[in-house]
Structure formats: structure tokens, C-alpha cells
């Protein structure tokens, strides 16, 4: 193994020997704010501008709505987290139906089924911990029950996001949720399906990741904007 302790000391001592420069105060800057009704509109508009599909659905009814959306696309196998609430709801709604897409639980380490994961599933369902209205962004906070490749390998990524977890800006989320003290292994912000403009600035989707992003905004029955605050 390379011994870099001498290198480290030389780099740091050169930096410390340099004349100091002042550390300016951080000038005021505020991320945009939205009121409750425009927040969801903005979230949807920004995502749709990046070719994601957004549906507002009743929180209790999403598996049925998703079934329709995936049937229209000929989806046969769907990977989901193991032991999550979303997985339980999917199982209850689709489990007994032989016509429904096959439900595949992400219940092993990736090494044990890489081939199937890379080539054999059509869609992945993830639960976002929140959304960001300013940029039309989903926040994925992978855990043992929400592995990160579910949102990356299948050609279709389905993201569930509860309406009341949508915030105005990333700055607000990081600060108010105290991310600095509890960063997970990996957190990912997703704003649309995978895309590239490397060939003549022409947008093409699904270059390596999902070709399609379907966002289901879960709404609680009887909930009003006033209650959202």
C-alpha cells in the first residue's frame, strides 16, 4: 500500500505557509418560497418539464392506479423494497391476481442476483422521503429496505411521494431536517428520467438509468391546503 503520510505533510505545510486570505461573511441569499397551492403545481410543472409523469393519487388507492399505468406499458416484473409499507400495500392489492406484474422483493445483496436485477426487471418502486418544489426533485434516502439500485437499474422508475413531504427548496430541507448530523450512506436527488444531450445537444432519455420516471403524489383523503400550512 502506498504510504502518503509524507505527501500529506508536505501538501498541508505548503498550504499553511501561504499568506492568509480573509474569510468573508456569507452574504444573504434566500432560496425561493412558494405558498401551499403553488408548491404542488411547481413540483409537478418542473418534473413534467423534465419528462417525468406526475399523478396525484389517493394514498389508499395508489397500487390500483399504478397497476393501470404499468399494464399500459406491458410491465411484467416490478422490484420493490423488502418489508416496507409500500411493499405490503402492493402485495395486498396485486398478490392474489395472476394477471398482475410479478412482484420481486429486493431481499438479498446485489451480488446474489445482479444478472436478474440488471436485465430481468421492468420497473422499480421506491418511496421518496420528500420532494422539492423549486426544481421538481425527489429525495431518495436509501436504506436496507429501500436499496439504491431500485431507482436506477429498471427501465421504469416509480417514485411515491407523500404530498405533505414536499418542501420549497433543497436549502430548506437540508437545514430544517438537520441533514448535517445524520447523513446516510448515500442520498440521491432525482429530477426526471436518465438523460443525455451529449450528441449534438439533442435530448435522449434512458441512456443508462431509467427511460421513464412515474411520480405518484400520495394525497390523504379529506386533507386541505389550509391544513398543510
Amino acid at each position, binding site marked *: 500500500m502506498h504510504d502518503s503520510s509524507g505527501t500529506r505533510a508536505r501538501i498541508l505545510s505548503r498550504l499553511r505557509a501561504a*499568506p492568509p*486570505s480573509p474569510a468573508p461573511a456569507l452574504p444573504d441569499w434566500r432560496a425561493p418560497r412558494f405558498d401551499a397551492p403553488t408548491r404542488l403545481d411547481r413540483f409537478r410543472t418542473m418534473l413534467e418539464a423534465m419528462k417525468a409523469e406526475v399523478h396525484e393519487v389517493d394514498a389508499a388507492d395508489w397500487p390500483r392506479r399504478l397497476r393501470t399505468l404499468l399494464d399500459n406499458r406491458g410491465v411484467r416484473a416490478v422490484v420493490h423494497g423488502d418489508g416496507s409499507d409500500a411493499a405490503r400495500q402492493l402485495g395486498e392489492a396485486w398478490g392474489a391476481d395472476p394477471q398482475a406484474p410479478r412482484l420481486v422483493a429486493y431481499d*438479498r445483496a446485489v451480488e446474489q442476483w445482479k444478472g436478474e436485477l440488471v436485465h430481468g426487471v421492468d420497473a422499480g418502486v421506491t418511496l421518496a422521503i420528500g420532494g422539492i418544489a423549486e426544481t421538481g426533485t425527489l429525495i431518495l434516502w436509501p436504506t436496507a429496505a429501500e436499496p439504491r439500485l431500485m431507482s436506477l437499474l429498471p427501465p421504469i422508475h416509480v417514485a411515491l411521494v407523500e404530498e405533505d413531504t414536499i418542501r420549497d427548496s433543497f436549502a430548506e430541507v*437540508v437545514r430544517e431536517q438537520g441533514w448535517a448530523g445524520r447523513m446516510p450512506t448515500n442520498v440521491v436527488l432525482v429530477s426526471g428520467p436518465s438523460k443525455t444531450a*451529449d450528441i449534438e445537444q439533442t435530448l435522449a432519455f434512458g441512456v443508462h438509468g431509467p427511460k421513464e420516471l412515474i411520480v405518484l403524489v400520495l394525497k390523504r383523503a379529506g386533507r386541505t391546503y389550509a391544513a398543510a400550512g
Partner: protein
Amino acid sequence: MTVDAQPDAGAPKAGSFAERAHLALNDKPLRANFRRAMDGLMAKRAAQFPDAADLAALRARGAAIKERALARLPDLLEQLEARCAENGIRVHWAETTDEANRIVLGIFREHGVKTVVKGKSMVSEEMHLNAFLGEHGIQAIESDLGEYIIQLAGEMPSHIVMPCIHKNKGQIGALFAEHIEGQRYTEDVDELTAAARRVLRDRFAEADAGISGVNFAVAETGTLVLVENEGNGRLSTTLPPLHVAVMGIEKLVETLDDIPPLLALLPRSATGQPITTYVNMITSPRCEGEKDGPREVHLVLLDNGRTRVYADPELRETLRCIRCGACMNHCPVYARVGGHTYDAVYPGPIGKILTPQIAGLDVAGDLPHASSLCNACVEVCPVKIPIADILVRLRREAVRPSASNSVQGAAVKGAGDGWTLSESSVWAGWKWLHANPALYRLGARALALAGNLIPAGVPPLKAWTSVRSKPKFAPRTLHQLARDKGFDDA
């Protein structure tokens, strides 16, 4: 894929920037490719910043964030190292690109790595990492579509954000037909993209390791932030069991709160996007119980001349750069000659100040002259780097190294190299003339009377008059005019 990817070094190009620029200016398809791309990028960026006051506040914030981080750089590097270690990321330090390459090779050898997928990273271009690994029996495949295309072509990137912007779809179609098994010639962008997906999918799955760069490293949490649109960066850093990230030591910020404003600046300045499709924040390897992600993560911190740049407070501002490429998108010189003309890893305005500082003025001393000092780059830089001031400073350093700023020897590598014999004799003559009033008067009168008779085609004038009209001497000298106005000491 029938043909293995070629090394990325690109054919060495002899001569000066000016010579290469003339070749580029005569390449019509190249000029059309750049013109179209740069016009589009300028319009897209402008659309992202409709409110001048909001933009001013955001830029002030972005510049201050980077200035603060640079002011505390050694402490923050130590903090980053400590946080990473706590999180299970192993940190390595490299003074030179060769040292960095050997560190990466050492990690790979320890793990028996044979194939690697690599996300886009400018620091790895500085290191010529692919070629180095190739020489040692490890195949590194570029996974970013643009980088993959130029790897197939055996070229260097021509832009730091859009590496194959110099190619059109016909050229890319031909390249794919030649190199990808079963791929017919097509100019259909979706079909070309699908072909790359098909080839690279299996590469991701088979790779023993992934390599990435780092857009921002957060000292407070030990988090590596990577932005991208394709998902190749996430695949390269998630699917293989080993992830090695390489970064320049300046890519550091103090806190996690610094990330949102920088994220608001970077993609909007670069490609006119409100945000990239993916923002990937990596804080540790796969934890106990997790089912995917790399089991080991390494971070290589590269100096490669950055501590020398840091030694001078004015030149230090170069290190604020967040690699958005807006300066090149708006540069009238870059838009006409393209990125390869600079014959450097970093082209365009930022490259004109960074390359001579890293490689030395003796090697890249003509780059600071490849500018009209029009200031377009300064106006769009999201972190307000005074590029034009630094260009002028480097032009001066090339002929007259400054002593005042020198802490560890010459401030700029190769300073003074541009001081030619003809220049020094002209300045000596100038000094002598001005120190002798009689001679000065005689010379000035001679030029006023006969200066316009000097033919435009003689050597000192020839270079100037090849693209400009010949300067005209006034019939009377300034001193004569002043005396006419009643100044008796003229």
C-alpha cells in the same frame, strides 16, 4: 464491442496556440459544431437567470462560499479526512499525477481489479489515468456517453462539461458503426444512445471497480457530492464492489448548507438546467444490512500544482472554479477555435489561467494571450473569478516574475520564460530613448515626418497589419502640440 477502447492521450499537436487556431478556423464543420452548441448554451443559461438581482445575490453567495473554504483550506482538508475516516472512506494524498495514478493502481492491485467503469472526471483527465491503467493491464471504460464517444475516437475532451461537443451526429454514427458490433450507420440520436446503453450495461455489471470525480466535498460531514444527468455516475459508484473517487484539493466546502446555493449555480451556468437529473451524495461505503453500494470507498486528494497556485493570494482565486464551463460557452475565442486548439486538459478562459499555472508558463505561456480580454467570461462566472485580471497577471509573469508574492520560490512555474531577446532590446532602447530628451525629440520628429512611409509588410509591422490596418503617425508630436497650447516645459 469489437474494438477495445483506445488510450485517451490524443495525438500530440506541435506548435503554438496561434498555429493550431488557424487550422481550427479553417475547419468548417468544426466551427459549425461549436457555433451551434455555444449559441444554444448561452441562450439556455440566460433563461435560467431571469432576475438580475437574484443572480447577483446567488453569485455573491457562491463566491463567498468558495473563498471561505479556500481561506481555511488546510484545516478543512484535515476535517474532511477525519470525517471520511469516521464514515469508513479511506483517504489518500498525492502531490503529483504520477503519485495519484500509483495510488489508484495500488488499490486496484490489492483487490485484483481487471476492469473498471469510470464516470466523467476532469482530474482523472489531468492524470491521464485511463492510459496509465491500460499500461498496467487494467481496462478503464468511460461510462459517460460523451466521454465514451471520445474514448472510442482516441481523443481528449474538447469541453469540460460536454466532452464530445466538437463532433456531430454523422461523425458519431460513423464511429459507432466502426467500433460497436452489429451497429449500422445511423444519425438517429435515440438509436445511437440505445447502442451505447446496450454496450455499457454489461460493462457496469461486470466491472470490478468504479472511478469517479467529485464536484463538491463537504468537510463538515465527509460527504462527496456528484452531479450528473445520465445515471452512469450513480452506476459507476454503486454497482461495482469498489469505488475510487479522485478530486483536486480545492473542491472543498465547509458545510452541507453550502451545497444548495452551489447546486443552484452549477447546472444552470453549465447547461441551463435548473438541476441535474441526479445529485448523488456519498457519505460512506455500504453499511451492515444494506443490500447494495460499494463495500469499499477510497478518496484520492490531488495537489498537482494547486498548492503553488494557492501560495499567491491573487492567483489563488483560480481555485474557486466549480467547473461549470460557462466561461468557455461565452468565450468568443473558444467558440471559434474549439477546445482541442488549447491542447490542454482545461480549455477556454479557465484553462487559460489554470493550465499555465499547473503546467508552467514555459509550457503553456501562449494560452494567456489567446484572449481579447472582452470580459465575457468574468461576467458569467458563477463564483466571480477575475479571469481577465489573472490573464493580465500571467502575461506579466511570463516576462517579469514578481518577487513580492513569492513564498516558496517563483510564484508561477516557468515565470520569466517569455522574456525574449528582441523584447528586451526593444525595452532597453525605449528606456534609453526616454532617458535622453534630445534623442527622444529627434526620434519623435522623425516618426512624425517619415513614420507613415514605413511599408506595412516589414517584419515588426507585418504581424500587426496582417489582421489590422496600419497605425498612422500624427504630423505633429504631442510635445509640439503642448507647446502650441502654451506649456513651456513640454
